[in-house]
């Protein structure tokens, strides 16, 4: 192997490593990069091989039905939408320019507002331009999801990627 080939390879490896580090920095500081997630209290539990687990802690304002103390279905959308983005980044191995094309929710059973909500999002297929994701939300029992979700994302939409705020390009 020639020196120049080796340095190309090294450069590519360094680039991939840097992309992974930027992604890790983003996920560890989600709250700083995504104001709405900070406000909602979204927490990333785990990110692994195109799958993301996230948590919506108990908050007074997440209630949709005060009579039965149920979490608003829109709160479930917000959590799973956030998790979908992280799952796509994880599948790509980097922060990228992505745009949500569509999102669909099926509400299987009521979710209680006095329990935390967990979302698992999985990027199960991607092409050069599109990523397909599906997810489930549950409370106490993972085998009894409160809702399921499915979505499609466009990759490389030409917009600025998500960046941790302190890493804004200086242009």
């Amino acid at each position, binding site marked *: 192997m020639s020196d120049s080939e080796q340095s190309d390879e090294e450069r590519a490896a360094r680039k991939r490593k840097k992309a992974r580090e930027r992604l890790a920095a983003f996920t560890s500081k989600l709250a700083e990069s995504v104001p709405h997630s900070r406000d909602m209290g979204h927490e990333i539990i785990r990110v692994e091989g195109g799958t993301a687990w996230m948590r919506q802690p108990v908050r007074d304002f997440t209630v949709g*039905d005060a009579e039965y103390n149920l979490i*608003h*279905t829109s709160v479930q959308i917000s959590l799973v939408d956030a998790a979908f983005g992280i799952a796509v980044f994880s599948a790509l191995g980097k922060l990228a320019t992505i745009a949500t*094309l569509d999102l*669909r929710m*099926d509400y299987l059973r009521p979710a209680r*507002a006095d329990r935390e909500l967990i979302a698992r999002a999985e990027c199960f297929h991607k092409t050069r331009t599109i990523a397909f994701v599906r997810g489930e939300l549950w409370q106490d029992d993972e085998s009894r999801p409160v809702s399921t979700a499915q979505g499609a994302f466009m990759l490389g939409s030409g917009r600025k990627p998500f960046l941790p705020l302190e890493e804004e390009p200086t242009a």
Partner: protein
Amino acid sequence: MSVEKGRDDTRQDILDAASDLDFDKVIDMIPYARYLGVEARLEGDELQLKLPYRETLVGNASLPALHGGVVAGFLENAALARLFISERNGRVPQPIDFSIDFLRSAKARDLYATCHVQRLGRRVAQVQAKCWQSDPDQPVAVARAHFLLKSRE
């Protein structure tokens, strides 16, 4: 806060407020709609909804753009508010499913929405909603939702 009001009266209060066309009161009794800051008013027969911009609704801070979950939540609440008004004989809409198509990114500005009840059946209603920022003909997103209509005993 309405959570503390107890189990018997909140839904009926919302139905009563809706039948009085008191939208502020309807939204006030749905904590997450109040959190989002949804505003509603009736223009003729049409319910017009507004989501005033604020920084905590932003998803992508480097664009900046509203969070996809905020846009979706606004449209879902819009559809729900619309049904509470269509449904004056005391049935409570419960979400079955929700589907949204994002057409362009929502900028850091106010968002507006209108809804249309496509079908108001004996048990199920279907509502379509769209939202925009500067031009109603350039929607940010369109959505549809099914709701189960449950009679109060």
